[in-house]
């Protein structure tokens, strides 16, 4: 991991003030508390921000790729228009796993055909990351898949130092945000290095899979490994893992007239390759008709099929699916079973 050089430092007070200022021009989403859960949500005041990270149920991908999104509007007399919605948004306090997730989603939605709905939101969003000093909980395994440090997906990255943060600037959008909203002072230049030393110490023995780079090959060779059925037979096909995953982006598209049949819209919504009907076609064939096949497909998307494309494990090790899975199925355990670490 190459050390980054920060350009500025900011006190926590100034940071909060900056966010407050930004609220005039942006909707700001940050880690916050609602009912008895912690989640990324739109805040009204910086006082609502929770700095102490606890894993959320959903990843912040929902801000770029919402659960339901209207993509077309039309009328009964044939007027039809694309609906592309985006608001100036600040995503604050996103952690490395999710930032790496953003990077993958950005690439996927920009791939070959640039998805207008997704990219419009990317364009209008300033992403401010915060580095993790320590492992957030027992289910997280970012360090196994090389995701404990963000490699992209952010405009600004914050590293915790005494009384504030050192800021790494990744994009022009990021530096414009600083000059417009944040009161900063010059950095010494070694802040990030010392943060990362501390982080390395905290992560300690937790090292990436020995065969991280070879995972696609290993998965290719182990299509029929016993682990697939061992884990797959427990799978409920409930799709929870997919809903919570920061790098799952399959969707379904449906049309709906309003009840008066005068206006209608086309909506895309999250879909899940783990649920039974996902790969069924009109002729009645279901190309992945067992939970084992579906599990194989999902995990291979993460460590094989898409990993080749993005040159990085597409599972970012956030641990959300492990927490969400009632059947206790874990991509990490599967990777280990096929020899990721031996």
């Amino acid at each position, binding site marked *: 991991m190459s050390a980054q050089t920060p350009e500025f430092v900011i006190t926590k007070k100034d940071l909060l003030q900056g966010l407050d200022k930004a609220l005039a021009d942006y909707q700001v989403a940050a880690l916050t508390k609602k009912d*008895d*859960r912690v*989640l990324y949500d739109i805040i009204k005041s910086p006082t609502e921000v929770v700095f102490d990270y606890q894993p*959320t*149920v*959903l990843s912040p991908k929902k801000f770029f790729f919402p*659960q339901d999104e209207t993509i077309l509007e039309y009328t009964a007399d044939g007027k039809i228009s694309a609906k592309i919605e985006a608001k100036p948004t600040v995503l604050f306090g996103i952690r490395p796993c999710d930032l790496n997730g953003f990077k993958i989603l950005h690439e996927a939605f920009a791939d070959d055909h640039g998805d207008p709905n997704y990219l419009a939101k990317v364009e209008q969003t300033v992403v401010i990351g915060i580095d993790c000093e320590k492992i957030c909980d027992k289910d997280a395994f970012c360090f196994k898949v090389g995701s404990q440090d963000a490699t992209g997906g952010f405009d600004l990255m914050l590293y915790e130092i005494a009384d504030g943060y050192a800021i790494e600037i990744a994009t022009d959008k990021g530096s414009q945000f600083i000059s417009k909203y944040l009161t900063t002072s010059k950095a010494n230049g070694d802040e990030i290095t010392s943060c990362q030393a501390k982080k390395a110490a905290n992560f300690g023995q937790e090292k990436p899979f020995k065969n991280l780079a070879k995972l696609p090959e290993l998965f290719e060779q182990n299509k029929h490994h016993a682990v697939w059925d061992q884990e797959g*037979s*427990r*799978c*409920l*096909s*409930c*799709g*929870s893992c997919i*809903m*919570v995953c920061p790098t799952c982006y399959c969707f379904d598209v*449906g049309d*709906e*007239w*309003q*009840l*008066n*049949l005068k206006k209608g819209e086309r909506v895309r919504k*999250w879909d*899940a390759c783990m*649920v*039974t*009907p996902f790969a069924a076609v009109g002729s009645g064939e279901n190309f992945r008709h067992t*939970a084992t096949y579906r599990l194989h497909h999902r995990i291979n998307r993460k460590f094989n099929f898409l990993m080749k494309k993005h040159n990085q494990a597409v599972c970012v090790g956030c641990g959300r699916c492990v927490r*969400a899975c*009632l*059947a*206790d199925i874990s991509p990490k355990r599967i990777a280990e079973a096929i020899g990721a670490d031996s």
Partner: protein
Amino acid sequence: MATKPKVAFFDFSCCEGCQLAAIDLTPEQLLDLLEVIDIVEFREAISEKSDSYDIAIVEGTITRDSDIPRLQKIRETAKILITLGACSTIAGINALKNFQTKAEYQQDVYPDDPTKYETTTARAVHEIVEVDAFIPGCPIDTDEFVRVVKNLVLGKKPDIPEYPVCVECKRNENVCVYEKGIQCLGPVTRAGCNARCPSNGGYCFGCRGIIPEPNLKSQQDIMQRYNLTFDQMQEKFKLFLERNKEVFPDGK
């Protein structure tokens, strides 16, 4: 729409909550709905009765043999028969009595004259006549009702989800109730209610019926992991799922 389809509502043994949910419409929705369908019979709300209708919407469980001819007549008359709610779709809460013998529950409730009133095993409508579409739930979800009616009018599939409640529960960003030590049938129950119970501090008790191809073995393992015995799990399933042969293979 050339001619509006005629729609008639019928009820058998039930609480009639689904009919109420069906008319829980905004003024705009009701006016729009009446643009696309013609309601010709709805005993709970209107006095008109009709012998001719295209779509019959049937609520309630069949709990008396004497109800069967009436149901058959409805089936013969209607082009499309839809069940409305858990009672007619899966026999609902009414089938809870099926776990006791008839003599037991009759004795229990009318000890003076147990056999005074006719009653028999509670059955879902599809066990007696063919059903073209179903709207599950106890009670039904109003939006889903509107969508199904609209789809049928447009010649579309009713579009009832085949995936489980967990999908919607997660979309709503709920913390799973199992984490609070509460058991939930969400992983094997058909979605479409927007995970209403877990999202509002409850838990799913399966009112919408089981999904196709449920992994009941795994559901059972989960409950066991959360310290529930097999019997306790069966108890959870009893509320709404007596008629499900996968869950209760020895059912009546």
